[in-house]
């Protein structure tokens, strides 16, 4: 079988795959406790130069603490952090070669946009002519040329966000830390800004580390994502790998929409695994091999868009084919998500995405319709944890 690749590839940039690449940022067995609460638990992570890396997780998962330790605002309880080969222990924030863009932007309200951007450069005692040139360059990069003389309170939210970005990039840091940088923007602006961030990162060739709870944002901008939970890394991989091959129920559930089907291993072979759904007895055949033994309980995770749905009724017992009854339809415009009941219980629901490719449909799927759902042998993943 030809080796398929997972998902689209944004750019050919995979330093983490070659073992001779030195990491640019390294967390080595880092633990951070606040009293009894363990915010970061013995975590090790390598981030490479020019990488756009995302720390993704819910609130309280330790992602912000991890970033603040890199910036120097928190001191690790134990463990070491390296940046470009230098141990950061004992180095105060104002001497670290990283800059941070704050969630609240933290723009100095008493200074104009230009002065805000120049603030860091003045601390470095750069010659005045160079400061002026650098500020002008940052204003151009962030399309803020006309707003240089304004005060932050005279700007819109999106403009403030760009000032914050310009200010944190002005010193040409080795690493730019972005703490929920787009959280305060509305959806449209956020999507535009995500692409601007990516372009900026490629243009400046700076390593970006972004903290976010928004999985779409992380998937859009990042080369790699670290999914965090309770102070530990659950999975570190590219967006496509995280989405298509989650390594646990937590990741599958956290990223995107997923059908989580509890099943028992019925048969294992070199060609894959055969599962039987616990609740409803339908058969799933997967080309994936599993460590679980025959008779063990596992989870089969399949994304709604991997499930094909047609009206009608199929033969029982055919692998990867499930009969159902339409229970709910969510019309989202581009797609509809169809919830179908496949068993006796009200929560035996399989969700399938139906792409609305035509504007007019002769016989649309309706509530209470009988439907057949089917999927390929490589459509889902078998999860044991």
């Amino acid at each position: 079988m030809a080796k398929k690749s997972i998902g689209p590839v944004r750019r050919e940039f995979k330093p983490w795959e070659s073992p001779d690449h030195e990491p640019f940022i390294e967390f080595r067995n880092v633990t951070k406790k606040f009293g009894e609460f363990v915010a970061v638990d013995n975590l090790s992570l390598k981030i490479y130069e020019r990488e756009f890396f995302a720390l993704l997780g819910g609130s309280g998962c330790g992602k912000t603490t991890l970033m603040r330790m890199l910036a120097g605002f928190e001191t690790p309880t134990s463990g070491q952090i390296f940046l470009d080969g230098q141990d950061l222990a004992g180095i105060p924030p104002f001497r670290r070669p990283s800059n941070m863009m704050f969630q609240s932007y933290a723009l100095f309200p008493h200074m104009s946009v230009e002065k805000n951007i120049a603030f860091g450069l003045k601390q470095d005692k750069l010659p005045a002519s160079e400061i002026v040139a650098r500020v002008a360059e940052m204003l151009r990069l962030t399309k803020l040329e006309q707003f240089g003389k304004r005060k932050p309170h005279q700007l819109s939210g999106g403009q403030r966000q760009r000032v914050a970005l310009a200010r944190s990039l002005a010193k040409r840091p080795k690493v730019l830390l972005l703490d929920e940088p787009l959280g305060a923007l509305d959806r449209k602006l956020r999507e535009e800004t995500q692409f601007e961030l990516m372009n900026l990162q490629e243009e400046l060739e700076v390593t970006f580390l972004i903290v976010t709870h928004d999985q779409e944002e992380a998937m859009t901008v990042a080369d790699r994502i670290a999914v965090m939970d309770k102070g530990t890394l659950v999975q570190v991989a590219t967006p496509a790998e995280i989405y298509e091959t989650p390594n646990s129920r937590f990741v599958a559930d956290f990223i995107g929409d997923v059908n989580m089907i509890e099943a028992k291993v019925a048969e294992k072979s070199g060609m894959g695994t055969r599962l039987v759904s616990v609740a409803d007895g339908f058969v799933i055949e997967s080309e994936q091999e599993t460590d679980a033994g025959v008779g063990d309980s596992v989870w089969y995770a399949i994304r709604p868009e991997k499930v094909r749905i047609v009206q009608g009724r199929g033969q029982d017992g055919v692998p990867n084919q499930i009969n159902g009854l339409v229970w709910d339809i969510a019309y989202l415009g581009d797609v509809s998500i169809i919830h179908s009941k496949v068993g006796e219980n009200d929560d035996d629901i399989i969700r399938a995405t139906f792409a609305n490719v035509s504007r007019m449909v002769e016989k649309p799927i309706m509530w209470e319709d009988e439907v057949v759902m089917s999927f390929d042998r490589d459509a889902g993943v078998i999860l044991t944890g």
Partner: protein
Amino acid sequence: MKENIAAPKRRSLGAWALIAAPYLWLLILFLVPFLIVFKISLSQVAIAIPPYIPAFDLAEGWQAFRDNLSELSFENYIWLTEDDLYWKSYLSSVTIAGISTLLTLLIGYPIAYGMARSPRSIRPTLLMLVILPFWTSFLIRVYAWIGILKNEGLLNQLLLALGIISEPMVILNTNIAVYIGIVYSYLPFLVLPLYASLERLDGSLLEAAEDLGCPPWKAFWKITLPLSLPGMIAGCFLVFIPAVGEFVIPDLLGGSDTLMIGKTLWVEFFSNRDWPVSSAVAVILLMILVIPIVLFQNQQQKMSERDG
């Protein structure tokens, strides 16, 4: 800022009454008394009850008022410029108030800063402690300082006992005692607005400054101090304005050579029974204070515009 897009509705009688209330209050309790004082300041002193000849009698009607208007005499005001006691008193008052304000700021800033940086849980207690002195009469608190500052008072006894000084210092009845009294009495008026502006300061601004390469002590000068300026200005005016006209503190704690306009006014009014001149003194005092008050108002307005 865009609320005024809504078409202005015709205001009801109740709304007018509500708007009129503060103006009515100012009219009755500020403008009318001021006009009375102003009228007295234009009259001549006499041995009578009350001890002045009115410049004009309102009871005589409009015609009499107009007749008198043409022969109004500002001789009391001219007198104020002729005797150097008055301008010296004004100058000395402004100087003493200015120095006291500066001292209050130097002491009050660290207090307010410490309060704003203290754990959130103890802040209400600290705030209480700042307000606590108000629960005792102002007069009694100033009197208490006599017991502390006099030659055989608590302060001298303590310093003697500790061997820091060999003979009692003369503090009471000097300008130093006045400074101490003003700083002590007006400290809360400075601490409270300053604390309010320091507490509002977003901690991430200081982190951002530090992140951009600014050491914490420098960030204080570049960020904290400029951003607490509105609170500082408000607090300083709240100390300076009443301190200029202060009477009780210089009278109780100051010496015979402590020259303050409040004392001069009191002497003029009660000892010399010269109501017209003392009224003129009061009017000029108000004029002097109107300048900082207008500045203060301006500042407040700018601040609310920025926040809005």
